[in-house]
């Protein structure tokens, strides 16, 4: 690995100030929560950071607490802590399932909630050093290239897919993200944290370079809310989602009163299926309703030459997810 400097941060405020200072000195800082992906990118040369702001020495923003306003999850909570937390398992089962589906125990033991949602795309062009939009270039090489794992929704000019499993769950639960920067804190709804390439072709979210995702607050789900995360992979374990379906449904008996269905792995941001949500409202969850929800889920999809398999895959995954939440 090339020579670099590790700076231990003592607090979130210390970390963002340090990052701003490093930038002011003309160097490139990168925050490291678990560092699982960052170190790989530095070794590969796809991340230019020469100063790592180490967050493992930060003792705050690690809590997972249930309070009056909902469940508060520190950005530095590890995925292992999230999947094992009793309140998360009881109140937000989709989040526990999504966290448990990430990578391997070795990754989940250090990888953080914030890092999982701000990890860079896994497009093979970007990861192999192509000067694409994500690397600051002017081209998306997948358009006329190997695009089997690329976006069927929301693509252009870049066609990456958002890789996080927990992000669509937090969008579905309508979480609030608290961002900390050198000039203070701000709050952003989860759905507005992620940005399409047509808005910003380089960055996947609204974070400034010296800002951190410090905390996530998930409002307590109303009574009779059920949820799940269903992940389809191209092998049985240890990879990203071909498609992941975060489904949060509020039921009255077996009738849907309110639904959120948000996808991972098919769009540059967690992709909300509003047409499916509207279709489900007021209907009982039957096999036929679930099948129709699956059909509706791919309306408006724009597949590339080599990713058409994601259409039937999306329909099937949405159908199974919805039917899986039918009352007992």
């Amino acid at each position, binding site marked *: *690995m*090339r*020579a*670099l*400097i*590790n700076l*231990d941060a003592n607090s979130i405020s210390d970390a963002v100030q340090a990052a701003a200072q490093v930038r002011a000195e003309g160097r490139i800082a990168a925050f490291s929560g678990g*560092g*699982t992906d960052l*170190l*790989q990118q530095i*070794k*590969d040369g796809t991340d230019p950071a020469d100063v*790592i702001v*180490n967050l*493992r020495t930060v003792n705050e923003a690690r809590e997972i607490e249930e309070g009056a306003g909902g469940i508060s999850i520190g950005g530095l909570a590890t995925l*292992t802590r999230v999947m094992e937390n009793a309140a998360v398992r009881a109140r937000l089962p989709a989040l526990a399932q999504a966290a448990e589906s990430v*990578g*391997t*125990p*070795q*990754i989940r*033991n*250090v990888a953080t909630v914030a890092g999982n949602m701000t990890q860079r795309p896994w497009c093979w062009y970007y990861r192999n050093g192509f000067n694409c939009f994500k690397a600051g270039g002017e081209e998306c090489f997948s358009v006329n290239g190997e695009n089997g794992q690329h976006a069927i929704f929301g693509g252009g000019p870049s066609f990456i897919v958002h890789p996080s499993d927990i992000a669509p769950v937090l969008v579905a639960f309508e979480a609030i993200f608290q961002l900390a920067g050198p000039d203070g804190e701000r709050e952003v709804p989860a759905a507005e944290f992620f940005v399409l390439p047509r808005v910003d072709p380089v960055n996947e979210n609204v974070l400034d370079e010296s800002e951190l995702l410090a905390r996530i607050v998930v409002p307590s789900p109303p009574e009779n809310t059920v949820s799940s995360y269903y992940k389809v992979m191209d092998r049985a*374990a*240890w990879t990203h989602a071909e498609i992941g379906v975060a489904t949060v449904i509020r039921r009255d008996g077996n009738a849907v009163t309110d639904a959120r269905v948000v996808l991972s792995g098919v769009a540059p941001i967690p992709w909300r299926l509003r047409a499916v949500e509207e279709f489900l409202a007021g209907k009982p969850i039957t096999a036929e309703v679930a099948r129709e929800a699956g059909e509706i889920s791919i309306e408006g999809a724009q597949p590339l030459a080599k990713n058409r398999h994601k259409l039937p895959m999306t329909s099937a995954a949405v159908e199974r997810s919805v039917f899986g939440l039918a009352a007992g």
Partner: protein
Amino acid sequence: MHSDSFDPATERQAVDPDAPQSPSRREFLETTGATVAASTVASFATPAMAQPTDAAAPRTTISVSVNGVRHEIEVEDRWTLAELLRDGIGLTGTKIGCDRGECGACTVLMNGAPVYSCGQLAVWADGAEVRTVEGLARNGELSPLQQAFVVNNAPQCGFCTPGQLMSATALLEATPSPTADQARAALVGNLCRCSNYNAIVEAVVAAGGGGVA
């Protein structure tokens, strides 16, 4: 190495640094490597280092406990924990396979939890308790898990074995009698190019006192 001819006592004696012996395979390889390196890159003064040392590279002094022994050691900020263990402390049981957090050969326990040591900077281990495969045997006795690996022929080429052992050790400490499915879930981050997964899972289950149906 086959289990029917494996004798831990003999094996230990063979690696006892105080025992009179012919040069070990490692010493032989390092000597050979030094010759090759010297003929191409004269600045490779320390053949045991995986990379050239750089006097200008930022350094930090850390305190890390490895298998119960505390080390106060100056590291380059860019060193991974795997490089510190192997090149800085000389514990070469931890293997570097992919060096990109994918294969699991470098798995060690950090404060009790399995991590990829190639994916941690050594400086991040400041203050941590690290356990490596060298720390599993106690008083010259292999751990029950290691014994089960021997009996069940879990290692083939053996390169992934240290990492498999560390992930399985963490599993057994949390779940003393795991099922085969629990063993598979715990070992999902440890790849075996020999594809000897069934024997590895059988060994882990056997170490917990169970049997794979």
